[in-house]
């Protein structure tokens, strides 16, 4: 049967359609705007930025080493990644959840191109994360005293994690058309991350997106041994594989997509294998050399008679060390006032970032250790080490001091500071200014008895010039071995201490 409608036909068409590629880009902009204004994503970015700013303000005056600062950008973006995972999954399931698929099916752009737009919206979130990471790292790099080199590979981990998580959420939407699947995936990921990141699974640990080293050790960039570039390749390959698989699942079975999946899986494999290779023999030798014979890789400069030997990345910091040495020497009396020292930068790199950073005290005369970290508490710690060498002759002897010499030693260490009491608090292990406590140094620490602390406090209460004069006047007696705290007080004209004067 035929129905005939006898009216003139019109040929209505869309004016100047932009084509599928342009439409995907337009849709990607639309989806990006929606994704970046989703509450979980907004909250995640706000928390990330807030945390970064707060943490930066709480840096306790430490000067950044950029080879550490780059890794510090990796953890927080995981929060953004999880928010993006949930949000992009929800967006991709939108038509299924609200029953619009039967309308969208007859529109020009097919489902796989819509999926491509969602994937591009994840790229937008990753790019915004990259901007945040660049800001975080840039802020560290611009701080006074920043040294070292950041790694592009390390800096890419944050944005790539967001990309990986987001595209995992997108693939999940194609495989499991349920809104519950993505939150379950997040829970599973958090479990795996918490479970595995606390354990040493060696090379397998690098299969996780973010591999943190729980260490405060700062190594020269070339001794880190982190396969950052390979890991970035692995993450990029994995993320792109998931994205392209999402296109395949959504019906985009095009030769280019198949080829892309093959290529990105190859990237993942290459990156995954290469990052698991472990430390090369050259790296092991370089770490050994830097740890045991740092003089072979350091350059030294002389300032006012003292010698300062630093790893290449730390050469700009020699001036800071020299200022401390000068100030400590200026408070010393006798021959110590003119004593030249050798400041040797040292690092324990043999075990990489996962090893113990502890350094043994040096026995070479008038040679003092400075570590790879600087600023904040590291300054009075180094100052105490210089003072110890000036009084005891070498580091080993200084760390064995267990008598009243601690009083002039600590006077030298903190007396030149603008707030000596605060410096004393910061250099002591338990942040105390009364009672007994350990004093931290770049190598082994010292121990201050309660009586020694009392005498030092009384000395610090005097006007600086007067205290300095009394120390210099009695320098020889004050720095004689086996002097008691009471005798030191007497020599300095201070009240006798009441506390215990017994070393541990």
């Amino acid at each position, binding site marked *: *049967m035929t129905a005939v409608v*006898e009216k003139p*036909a019109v040929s209505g068409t869309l004016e100047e359609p932009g084509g599928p590629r342009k439409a995907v880009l337009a849709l990607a902009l639309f989806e990006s705007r929606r994704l970046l204004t989703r509450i979980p994503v907004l909250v995640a970015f706000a928390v990330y930025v807030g945390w970064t700013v707060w943490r930066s303000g709480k840096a306790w005056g430490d000067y950044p080493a950029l080879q550490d600062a780059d890794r510090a950008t990796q953890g927080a973006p995981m929060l953004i990644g999880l928010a993006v995972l949930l949000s992009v999954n929800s967006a991709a399931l939108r038509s299924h959840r609200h029953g619009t698929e039967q309308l969208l099916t007859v529109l020009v752009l097919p489902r796989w191109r819509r999926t491509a737009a969602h994937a591009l919206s994840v790229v937008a979130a990753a790019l915004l994360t990259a901007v945040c990471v660049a800001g975080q790292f840039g802020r560290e790099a611009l701080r006074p005293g920043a040294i070292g080199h950041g790694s592009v590979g390390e800096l890419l981990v944050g944005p790539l994690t967001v990309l990986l998580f987001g595209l995992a959420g997108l693939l999940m939407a194609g495989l499991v058309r349920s809104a519950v699947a993505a939150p379950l995936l997040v829970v599973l990921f958090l479990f795996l991350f918490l479970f595995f990141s606390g354990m040493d699974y060696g090379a397998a640990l690098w299969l996780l997106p973010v591999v943190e080293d729980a260490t405060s050790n700062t190594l020269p960039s070339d001794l880190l041994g982190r396969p950052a570039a390979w890991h970035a390749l692995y993450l990029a390959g994995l993320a792109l594989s998931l994205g392209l698989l999402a296109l395949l699942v959504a019906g985009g079975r095009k030769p280019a997509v198949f080829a892309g999946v093959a290529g990105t899986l190859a990237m993942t494999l290459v990156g995954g294998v290469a990052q698991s290779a472990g430390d090369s023999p050259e790296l092991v030798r370089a770490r050994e050399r830097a740890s045991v014979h740092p003089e072979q890789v350091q350059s030294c400069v002389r300032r006012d008679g003292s010698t300062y030997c630093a790893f290449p990345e730390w050469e700009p910091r020699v001036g800071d060390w020299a200022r401390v040495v000068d100030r400590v020497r200026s408070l010393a009396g006798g021959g110590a006032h003119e004593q030249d020292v050798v400041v040797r930068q040292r690092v324990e790199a043999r075990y990489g970032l996962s090893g113990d950073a502890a350094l043994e005290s040096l026995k070479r005369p008038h040679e003092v250790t400075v570590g790879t970290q600087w600023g904040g508490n590291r300054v009075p710690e180094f100052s105490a080490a210089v003072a110890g060498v000036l009084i005891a002759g070498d580091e080993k002897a200084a760390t064995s001091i267990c008598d009243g010499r601690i009083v002039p030693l600590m006077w030298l260490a903190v007396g030149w500071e603008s707030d000596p009491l605060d410096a004393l608090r910061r250099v002591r292990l338990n942040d105390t200014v009364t009672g007994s406590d350990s004093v931290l140094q770049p190598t082994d620490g010292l121990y201050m008895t309660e009586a020694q602390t009392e005498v030092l406090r009384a000395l610090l209460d005097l006007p600086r010039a007067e205290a300095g004069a009394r120390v210099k006047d009695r320098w020889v007696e004050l720095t004689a071995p086996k002097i008691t705290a009471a005798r030191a007080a007497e020599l300095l004209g201070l009240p006798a201490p009441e506390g215990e004067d017994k070393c541990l």
Partner: protein
Amino acid sequence: MTPTVSASGLSLRYGGTRALDDVSLRLTAGVTGLLGPNGAGKTTLLRVLATALPADRGTFTVLGHDPATARGRQEVRRRLGYLPQTPGFHPDFTAFEFVDYVAILKEMTDRGVRHREVRRVLDEAGLADVRGKRIRKLSGGMRQRVALGAALVGDPGFLVLDEPTVGLDPEQRMRFRELIAGAGEGRTVLLSTHQTEDVAMLCHRVLVMAGGRVRFEGTPAELTARAAGRVWSSAERDPGAKAGWRTGTGSFRNLGDPPAGADLLEPTLEDGYLLTLDGAGAEVAA
């Protein structure tokens, strides 16, 4: 004259059910009504013509494009506006965002042009004041108008509307009829409905489907004329009538073959429709 839509021998089975059975039609500009009882195949026909569903057999073209090929299907979709029977909405989108989203999926890529077009169709649908409102905050009638706006975006030459006035109150239905009448000016509209008043008021042509087949094609007047001399009034329900019901005046309105001397009444489109269904073997409920 080249029709907007030309279909020949469309057939489709769902398992053992023949949803479409050798349907052929030609549509040109104006609103064509599609009447039929539940299960007649109306929605299936609309979905096939909207390229949402492939037919088992038969061919059709829309504005000269054959959707049997991928390229042809794309061309048809570029020229198509579709309002499904139960259009879904993204409740957290605003009306503007939803229509904008649909416009992008219709490959309108120039943001400025697209946004002008979205504003135009929302204005046309009477939604200018609420275009920034989230869809979840809109009434059912307004949502339906958003769906119509989405169907109209890009000025499609062929508009497929599947029972757009279902669930609307009389005022909303009247407003919607105005919109459909406007949409039918200069383009081809295929309107599936259960409401014979919609057809009487809007359509210049009407198709009646039953059992997957087209049982009538013609003008509403021709459908009405089918009942001429076959509608009569009586004090009691005439047992010989194919259908009969008590009217507001208390008398019965009977359809069928009237007895001699019956008090004949002026037929309506619905009378013609019901008698057409009866002739097609479909159940006439009254």
